[in-house]
């Protein structure tokens, strides 16, 4: 597959892109009121507390929306592939745009259960998702 465009790492988002090194997905959360903050920000949008920190999350969720891309937008891009927005379990108000990969990825549908996995590229661990076992058809 073609190289993934690289997000610019900052002191604020570095934890998110490197969390996969330990195989755990992390999302910024407010320590005062529990609000999830994604993409990461230095302040809670609910209570304006600056006491925010990366929090490990389960890494499971459901597909909120999905598209299968067939157009080769760039050289070396293997099509088709699935791009989804995933609603993470226990992480209200956050969707992760991601790729569904592995068996049956392009047959995945809204509502399917998914599980995070990581793909490393030059020191960035991209959170991708595979369909949970019971959902494979």
């Amino acid at each position, binding site marked *: 597959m073609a190289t993934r465009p*690289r*997000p610019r790492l900052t002191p604020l988002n570095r934890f998110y892109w490197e969390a996969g090194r330990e195989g755990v997905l992390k999302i910024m959360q407010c320590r005062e009121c529990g609000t999830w903050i994604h*993409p990461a920000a230095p302040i809670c949008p609910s209570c304006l507390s600056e006491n925010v920190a990366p929090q490990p999350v389960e890494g499971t969720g459901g597909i909120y929306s999905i*598209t299968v*891309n*067939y157009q080769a937008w760039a050289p070396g891009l293997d099509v088709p592939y699935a*791009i989804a927005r995933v609603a993470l379990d226990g992480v209200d108000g956050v969707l992760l745009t991601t790729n569904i990969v592995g068996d049956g990825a392009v047959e995945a549908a*809204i509502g399917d259960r998914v599980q995070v996995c990581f793909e490393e590229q030059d020191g960035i661990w991209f959170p991708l998702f595979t369909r949970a076992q019971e959902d494979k058809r």
Partner: protein
Amino acid sequence: MSNKSDPVISGVGQSAVGKFVDRSPLLLTIDAIKEALDDAGLTLADIDGVSTWPGRVETMLEMAPVGCDDVIEALRLNVTWYNGAYETAAQYSAIGDAVAAVRAGWARHVIAFRTISQGSARKKPEEFPSVHPKGIAGVMANTLPYHAYSAANWVAQYASRHFHDYGTTREQLGQIAINARRNGALNPKAIFREPITMDDYLAARMISSPLCLYDCDTLSDASTVVIVSAADTARDLRNIPIRIDAVAQALPGRYTWDQPVEPACYPTARRLWELSDYSIKDVDIGQLYDGFSFLTLQWIEALGLCPIGEGGRYLEGGHRIARDGEFPINTNGGQIAAGRTHAFGYVREAVRQLRGQAGETQVDRDMKVCVTGAGGGPLSMAMLLARD
């Protein structure tokens, strides 16, 4: 309903439009300016304001090749106000901000332009280097790494969810493209002038499901100019002034294509009706953004032509939106048939329709009010244009 202080559109103009036009973006812009000046009966000496969206942006020159400074320099314009900026509501910000400037007395005749070189950039990428030093920042940093390069991918997320939640079908959505191509067949400037059938639509190759080839506009080279003028200049103009009744924008808390917030067109349309004495029932015709057909469906819902979720059923059969239907839309073929003018083409078409000067694409009825909406996701701006 007429407010005598409302700024007017005094002239519209457009360069050649095509998948590739062998002319520099600046010269295309000046072609459009000349045509708009002629349309309005104005000269360069009358112009005291320049406005564009999103300005010249070095990280996406194919989208944003010409800034206000380029135009002011090239034409040695003496201006009292100018503005080109990306952190604004949508393509129509160039027009909406000109309206505000004219209302404030900062300028009396503003050239608002939108120039785009995505056709040339595909043919000659070396002339339009897209540079992201040190990686992707901002709103796209969580999207582009997943090979979600195109707005087709971002819009498809909304479309797939709408299909899931409301039972919207490809046959319903397909009416947007079929209508566009039917209207484009009448437009001598359209890029695609052959109508398509539902069979053609359903057989087309997928781009990003559920959006197929015909759901997407085509990358183009184009420049379109709208001259915004003070109300008290209207009597000196060559052509019929079109009053800008209301301009609305809204952003519901998050500048994002991918988080669970309402697309900005919905609150924008609610705001539009707050700002105007008109209601949707007073509107004769619509020019609604069809860079991707699903965005048109969202505008149809947002503006209140049908309840939210009913956009697919509203489109069924295509008769409502046809040129002889109850609410004709995208009468020049929209961007799907007439090319990605990036929203300004709808304003040009609206003005020509309201004046009765749309030539082959003219809708055969007396029309007073047109609504136009541009943008998708977090980008959104809408306007009501009226012939008094």
